[in-house]
């Protein structure tokens, strides 16, 4: 089960790579496609579900194109 994931606004991204550099799990990479500005935007490649929703990529993104989602932890006792 994925603990978290990110969404990157492809058109806003300028492909600077700061999020790729800072990601502790190294699960962000440059897309092979171009966006309309001609940059290779960043994309999350996380087949093993390693994203912890730490938010480092969001904090370093200079173009504010990352939205971070974190799993809602079930409250203990509610599982029944």
């Amino acid at each position, binding site marked *: 089960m994925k603990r978290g994931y990110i969404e990157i606004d492809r*058109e806003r991204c300028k492909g*600077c790579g*700061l999020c790729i550099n800072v990601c502790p799990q190294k699960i962000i990479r440059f897309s092979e496609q171009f966006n309309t500005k001609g940059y290779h935007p960043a994309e999350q490649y996380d087949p093993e579900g390693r994203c912890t929703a730490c938010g480092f990529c969001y904090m370093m993104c*200079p173009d*504010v194109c990352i939205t971070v989602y*974190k799993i*809602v932890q079930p409250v203990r006792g509610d599982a029944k």
Partner: protein
Amino acid sequence: MEYNVIYKMPDALSKKPFTYCPGCHHGIVHRLVAEVIDELGIREKTIIVAPVGCSVFAYEFFNLDGTVAPHGRATAVATGMKRANPDLVVFTYQGDGDLAAIGTAETIHTANRGERVTTIFINNAIYGMTGGQMAPTTLLGMKTTTSPYGRSPEREGYPVHVCEILKELKGVAFLARTKVTTPKDVLTTKKYIKKAFLAQIKNLGYGLVEVLSTCPTNWGVPPIKAMQWLEHNMVVEYPLGVFVDKVGEDK
């Protein structure tokens, strides 16, 4: 499974794409300012005074009212706004060519009068918008288009340390120098920006946060290398830290 949004674009930013170069730290600082404005709940009464420089369109990117001041005069314009409408929160967003070169007089006297305005000062050691000329904050030996053999103290003088100059003035309520190259620094910077706004809201005096920033385009290096260069050179010349803090630790 259910997922919650934990980080997203703050409401105080308009959705317009930034016009800055890839990897420029302006965007990070814009976001931090917007987050602080959202947290303090002052979006409806905040006014931004944009400078001349790369961030001349800053008022477009914020979901705030704003204006542009003539080169270097942002703090003077902000002074007038704040004195005419003391209930508003007024902040200026200036670069080093604007604040430390042509606007030195305005900056020093605004700080000395203890005007209730806040300044976010982006120090990237170069003139960005005009194409990489030497700024007063350019490091010794640094090559720019107007100091092609490197800045030498005999010809161009020494780098200006804005925080060290302003810290002696009595009107300053919060003064800090920081950087935004790691997530930890980003969080620290956010704390400082919040305090600089609180200095104004609590009617204590002038608040200034100097953020060391990269300019990958004019330094001529890729964004990641620019951050390493900043860590190894600029932080040595411009030591980080809080210089004046009359705000205190409470919220």
